[in-house]
């Protein structure tokens, strides 16, 4: 890389700092909560699980209850928040490149609403069971997201050959239809209204290690796809024809990217509910840091999204004890003003 070794160097430093910040935020987040565990203890409990360390020495003198709280309750929750935050941010980067629109994010594909509808059905009809750590609500949410995705693509393919607009329109239509269906479910099942509503706002309170593993596998798979397509996505931001004239297989790139993004969003929403704006704001902020090239932007956004989500989740757990604020509400409170700012900036650009 010759394009200014300085730039690559600064980027490495930025990436390194973000990674370090992520580790600190993780340890901080597991330390705080209704039972406060000293920072040093939580660091040691987390570190004890790493390979090649002297476990006995690290855990010496730490109460068993603290170990349980940290390891079984808080750490999976914090990690899940990190994985979902990073995944949503990476999905946002790819969506913005694919749709050549800085305001597009995975929610417009209707996948989030699909997941919410699946979960709402499970809650409203009282379908609650758990098989080896996998709850029915989670399963229904994932199925709902996948079915919506298939429906959206199917409709988009029939409706128009202009795949981009077609998918966006089909996504928006499905999304409002499903939201209406959820509202009906809530009205018919008054006693479960709160539960459904909370799920729609998003939360990591039901985190388990199984969910962490599932989310981790999907995230790694999707990120590998995004990396493979990094250069293609750069070129695609100049439109299909120009990208193709420079050698990009446009259709293949779009298909892989859309499917990988959809799976990632479906997995995220199914484990945590709908958490808005992360996929919109993090890519924008990180683009200022990493520049527009997707191969640089994606890893930086992953880290940024993870830090932001863990931080928001920490606020949601600790702001008004013993209650929890839905984490989706916190990301929206921070995200919505930023969204407005983007619109305002866009408009100013148009007036110039």
């Amino acid at each position, binding site marked *: 890389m010759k394009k200014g070794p300085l730039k690559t160097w600064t980027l490495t430093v930025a990436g390194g700092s973000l990674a370090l910040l992520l580790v600190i935020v993780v340890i901080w987040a597991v330390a705080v909560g209704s039972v406060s565990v000293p920072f040093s203890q939580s660091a040691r409990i987390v570190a004890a699980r790493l390979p090649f360390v002297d476990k006995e020495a690290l855990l010496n003198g730490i109460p068993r209850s603290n170990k349980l709280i940290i390891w079984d309750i808080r750490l999976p929750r914090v990690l899940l928040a990190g994985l979902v935050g990073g995944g949503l941010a990476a999905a946002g980067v790819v969506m913005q490149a694919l749709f050549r629109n800085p305001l597009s994010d995975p929610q417009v594909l209707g996948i989030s609403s699909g997941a919410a509808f699946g979960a709402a059905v499970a809650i409203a009809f009282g379908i609650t069971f758990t098989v080896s750590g996998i709850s029915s609500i989670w399963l229904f949410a994932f199925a709902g997201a996948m079915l919506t995705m298939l429906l959206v693509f199917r409709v988009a393919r029939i409706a128009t050959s202009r795949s981009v607009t077609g998918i966006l329109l089909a996504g928006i239509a499905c999304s409002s239809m499903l939201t209406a269906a959820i509202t009906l479910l809530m009205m018919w099942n008054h006693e479960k209204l709160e539960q459904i509503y909370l799920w729609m706002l998003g939360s990591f309170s039901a985190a388990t290690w199984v969910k962490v593993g599932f989310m981790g596998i999907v995230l790694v798979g999707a990120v590998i796809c995004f990396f493979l397509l990094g250069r293609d996505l*750069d070129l695609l931001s100049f439109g299909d*024809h120009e990208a*193709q*004239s*420079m050698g990009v297989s446009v259709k293949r790139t779009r298909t892989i990217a859309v499917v990988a993004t959809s799976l990632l969003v479906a997995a995220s929403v199914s484990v945590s509910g709908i958490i808005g704006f992360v996929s919109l704001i993090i890519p924008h902020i990180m683009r200022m840091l990493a520049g527009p090239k997707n191969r640089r932007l994606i890893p930086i956004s992953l880290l940024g999204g993870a830090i932001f989500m863990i931080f928001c989740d920490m606020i949601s757990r600790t702001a008004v004890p013993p209650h929890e604020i839905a984490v989706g509400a916190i990301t929206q409170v921070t995200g919505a003003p930023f969204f407005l700012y983007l619109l305002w900036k866009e408009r100013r650009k148009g007036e110039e």
Partner: protein
Amino acid sequence: MSDTPNTELQANHLTYQPSGVTSPILSDVSYTFLKGHMTALLGPNGSGKTTILRHFLSQIKSPDGAVLIGGKDAQEYLPKERSRILSWVPQSSNSSENAFTVEDVVLMARYPYKGTWEDDSEEDFRIADEAMRTVDVLDFKKRDFNSLSGGERQRVLIARALTQKTPWILLDEPTSNLDVRHQLQIMKIVREKVDEKTTSAVVVMHDFNMVERYCDRVVLLKNGKIVATGETKDVMTTDLLSKVYEVDFDIIEKDGKRLFFPQEGK
């Protein structure tokens, strides 16, 4: 330069009529663009000039055997293969929402030569620098592409096409956004590349005087049909031009080149 030295571009009874359009945009167009020439596609608005380019670029699906690149159906090429043969200078670029620098944009044209994980090499940077120097944009290579004026962008797009190192360059009204100095500069650069046998060119043009000065062959089109083809001096005649454009022309000779003046009022 290329692994396919004798790639001719050939249209073979090419007819194009999208559904819902009453008259064909191209009808029975047959022409072989020969290597080593700078061929102009000339004709009034809506005569199908750009549509011909778009067929070679596979932006439009063509009937089997109607559009050939080096004897092979244009649609049988993978995009990456085709982009090692044809580069394209669009009339104006879709600006990206992203703040790519001029250098980033030009380097994108090295894509056809890159493996998935390969990063840009010293060689790629050298090729891009050379192309940017040729069209006078090297000074602002670190600037945001979106912040450039129309003419500056146009020159960057030409640098990008040169960076793609293809045996053919297809240019769609490359001078339409340029001031006269840069018009001459761009046409001269393309002419030189053709004379050096580095590339061959097909240029969609409106300006007769530019065609007369720089292009050695002309395909004259009207309403999607070829009216005349051949060497520039044989096609660019008052007879043919007034027939096609429905405007009369005066021709003045100066230094062995002809200047075309349209007349009002026919």
